[in-house]
């Protein structure tokens, strides 16, 4: 590489194909062309990979009933060439295997738990006929009362949906004598903090093609985790792992929303291809996508904190409930992250934390950038504002005294081993935003305010998950002419590994990034480097790639084909007990600060964001614009979450906002430019010092926003989104 500094930005290698319309997303793939071509991402195009002219259209028949035992199914007469496929056709197990659960069936069999649950898939050549067949299907259920939210879930409305108590999972942590601390406290602060559903709103809807090739099955399309799709399809079809081939096409955004859904959608499609022997294509339109794919878990956090007469924190007592929807799916691991993040950047001497994932009759909640952290950090940061008001001190001063330091214990009694640079981040945030000066200057309730929130985000899978569950592997291959290709399963859905991984290898080998090959993953070609989730791609997979490149460099043989491989191993000293949830819950942490400045209109209660800042410790930015792009895009999403993205359910558990005109996402006019900044703090086990960062940029912008609104309106704002009606209610309640 020409530049010595890996942070110095390069043009995106995938930029021209995307900007000129040449990049092919699943909906763009040509049908019937001869084999042997590849598309811009380097994946093959042609009839043998699902693109033959015998392709069928697939559509799901989804339950119109929210809850009950299925007592009858009525299928219409099916013309030649059309097929209805349901649970009776599943050759393997009728369940979608996920990282920590298998309770979601591939096809609903005995019962339905939410409106939209997949009961059958209809496939055939003419989309109109397929639609008519879907419309002709009916099921009868023995209906039971619908449980709409966490309160009804706890009250066991209609009886338990899951187990005997509707609790999918619990995560509890304790340190010290919390009751004694509260008994001796001079001051106790308390609050309840709510967050709503949030839609990922990737611009490209879900879309896949499945096909059968003898005893094998293929799946291609829009996804985050090719090997998750591979595992799910092998499980449902009862095939060996090499019996399923998964290919990623260009992905038009994901944000977690394509972590579970390609399995939920792809497994029934694969059964249909298995049964018919033909390729099946399904593209979801925006309404189906918004109505039935997984969303961010709604949450209710209750924080109580005990303080002594000098204003020292004695203890915290925290309850975290998240709404998992109808099946557990990813709820346990979302809850773990919510709990492990719920004390933020603060050193809390004693605590009692009780976390629950609850069942309701709504679409199963799933992964969304941040994965539980945006919920608990909202509760925590808003509670710190509350505590500061109760104690009569400035919240930043209160927080600063509690900052974690190297050597402190983590929430799970592990150790913060790496240098923590929160003070430097605060200095940078002050320099850019003049936070403290503005905070002091704006009178409370004067309709202008500024807020600051703090972020901690564990990088990679929780605990020893990388070692015990994921076991990531990567490879590099060099051909005789010296061309080097990266082989791993990491997906670029916009967050940049096509740029950053090439830079890492190029920097090690002294080449230019554009000389390094890196095709979109095809599980027939690449090892399982794990899913593209959990802020692990750069830090964990990128580090394996750096090590592989160093190995290749050190053993380079001119004119020969060479292949080098790397397998994950835990950084030295890390220890984790998964039973007791004790030890190092993450290998290391990303840190950050968000500042937001607002003006509220006292007539319409509309709030305008007038400034936004994101300051982070990402270890080392492997490409400054890739990192800044994450910071700015994450800020936009988190401000949307805090300010405008309202998603409600109706009396039967359906989402009310299922079109783009009803669900408001930020436009170019809604928020000002986010000033992005990073402070270097290299991590020894990340590539060139890089840590994970793709998620923490969505962890707390909403908290900074709500804190700013609190100053502007002079009232506590403990729930988001703070749309004008909500703010008006808050003002009237406190009149």
């Amino acid at each position: 590489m020409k530049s010595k500094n890996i942070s110095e930005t390069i043009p995106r290698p995938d930029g021209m194909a995307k900007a000129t319309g040449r990049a092919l997303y699943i909906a763009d793939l040509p049908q019937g062309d001869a084999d042997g071509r590849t598309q811009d991402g380097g994946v093959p195009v042609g009839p043998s990979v699902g693109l033959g002219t015998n392709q069928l259209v697939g559509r799901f028949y989804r339950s119109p009933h929210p809850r009950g035992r299925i007592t009858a199914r009525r299928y219409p007469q099916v013309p030649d060439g059309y097929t209805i496929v349901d649970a009776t056709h599943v050759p393997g197990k009728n369940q979608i295997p996920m990282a920590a659960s298998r309770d979601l069936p591939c096809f609903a069999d005995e019962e339905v738990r939410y409106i939209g649950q997949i009961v059958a898939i209809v496939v055939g050549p003419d989309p109109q006929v397929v639609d008519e067949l879907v419309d002709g299907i009916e099921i009868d259920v023995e209906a039971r009362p619908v449980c709409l939210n966490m309160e009804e879930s706890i009250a066991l409305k209609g009886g338990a949906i899951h187990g005997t108590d509707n609790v999918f999972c619990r995560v509890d942590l304790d340190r010290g004598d919390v009751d004694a601390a509260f008994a001796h406290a001079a001051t106790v602060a308390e609050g309840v903090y709510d967050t709503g559903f949030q839609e990922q709103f990737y611009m490209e809807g879900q879309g896949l093609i499945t096909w059968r090739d003898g005893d094998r099955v293929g799946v291609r399309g829009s996804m985050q985790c090719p090997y998750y799709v591979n595992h799910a399809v092998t499980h449902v079809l009862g095939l060996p792992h090499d019996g399923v081939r998964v290919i990623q096409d260009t992905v038009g955004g994901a944000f977690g929303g394509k972590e579970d859904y390609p399995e939920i959608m792809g497994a029934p499609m694969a059964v249909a291809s298995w049964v018919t022997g033909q390729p099946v294509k399904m593209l979801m339109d925006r309404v189906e996508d918004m109505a039935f794919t997984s969303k961010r878990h709604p949450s209710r956090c209750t924080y109580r904190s005990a303080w002594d007469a000098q204003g020292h924190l004695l203890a915290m007592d925290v309850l975290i409930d998240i709404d998992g929807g109808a099946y557990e799916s990813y709820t346990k691991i979302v809850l773990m992250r919510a709990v492990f993040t719920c004390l933020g950047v603060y050193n809390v001497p004693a605590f009692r934390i009780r976390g629950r994932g609850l069942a309701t009759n709504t679409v199963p909640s799933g992964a969304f950038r941040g994965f539980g952290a945006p919920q608990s950090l909202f509760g925590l940061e808003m509670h710190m504002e509350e505590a500061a008001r109760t104690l009569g001190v400035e919240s930043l001063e209160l927080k600063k005294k509690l900052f974690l330091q190297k050597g402190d214990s983590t929430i799970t009694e592990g150790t913060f081993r790496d240098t923590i640079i929160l003070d430097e981040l605060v200095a940078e945030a002050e320099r850019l935003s003049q936070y403290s000066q503005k905070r002091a200057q704006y009178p409370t309730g004067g309709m202008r305010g500024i807020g600051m929130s703090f972020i901690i985000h564990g990088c990679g899978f929780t605990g020893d998950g990388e070692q015990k569950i994921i076991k990531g592997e990567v490879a590099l291959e060099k051909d005789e002419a010296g061309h080097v290709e990266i082989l791993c399963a990491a997906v670029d859905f916009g967050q940049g590994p096509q740029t950053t991984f090439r830079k890492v290898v190029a920097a090690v080998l002294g080449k230019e990034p554009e000389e390094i090959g890196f095709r979109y993953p095809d599980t027939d070609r690449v090892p399982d480097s794990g899913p593209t989730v959990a802020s692990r791609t750069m830090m964990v997979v990128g580090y394996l790639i750096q090590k592989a490149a160093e190995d290749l460099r050190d053993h380079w043989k001119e004119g020969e084909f060479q292949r080098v491989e790397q397998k994950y191993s835990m950084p030295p000293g890390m220890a984790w007990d998964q039973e007791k949830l004790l030890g190092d819950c993450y290998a290391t942490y990303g840190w950050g600060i968000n500042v937001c400045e607002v003006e509220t209109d006292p007539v319409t209660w509309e709030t305008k964001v007038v400034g936004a800042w994101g300051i982070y410790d990402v270890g080392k930015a492997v490409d400054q614009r890739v990192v800044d792009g994450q910071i700015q895009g994450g800020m936009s999403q988190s401000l949307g979450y805090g300010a405008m993205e309202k998603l409600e359910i109706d009396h039967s558990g359906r989402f009310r906002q299922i079109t783009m005109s009803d669900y408001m996402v930020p436009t170019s006019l809604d928020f000002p430019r986010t000033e992005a900044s990073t402070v270097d703090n290299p991590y020894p086990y990340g590539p060139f010092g890089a840590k994970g960062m793709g998620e923490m940029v969505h962890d707390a912008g909403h908290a900074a926003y709500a804190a700013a609104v609190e100053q502007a309106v002079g009232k506590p704002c403990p729930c988001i989104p703070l749309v004008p009606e909500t703010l008006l209610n808050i003002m009237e309640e406190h009149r």
Partner: protein
Amino acid sequence: MTVKLTVNGEERQVEVKDGTRRLLDVIREDLGLTGAKEGCGEGECGACSVLLNGQLVNSCLVPIAQADGSRVLTPEGLAQTPEGQVLAEAFTECHGAQCGFCTPGMMMASAALLYRNSQPNEQEIREGLSGNICRCTGYDMIIDAVLMAAQKGRGLWG
């Protein structure tokens, strides 16, 4: 019915059964030009943007009968022009494209803006792109790209 269009400078004739078919479907399916994307199908996202007789439109809202006899510029056609090249390079350099799904539409909206106003300021760019949703970038680097294209393409935009 037979519909005549001049697409990216080339005369094309398309047979359609139904004049209410969407222009977006005709250019994607019948003409094989898949640069314009469907993000919502209801005129809210701008992913399907094309220029129709020089005007920026959401092609998912245009019935094909209404486009009969018109000039259509799609993202593929824009890419062939010097202005399109400058814009595409600016999006690439400024990282104005992340997942890229909104990008062809953003390219069309940016071109429409620059043809109208060759040296826009940040606020004018925000207004010019306000009909196009991007979920990835937060828009800031798209704005950087348009500013760069205005700068580097000085003289190109007329």
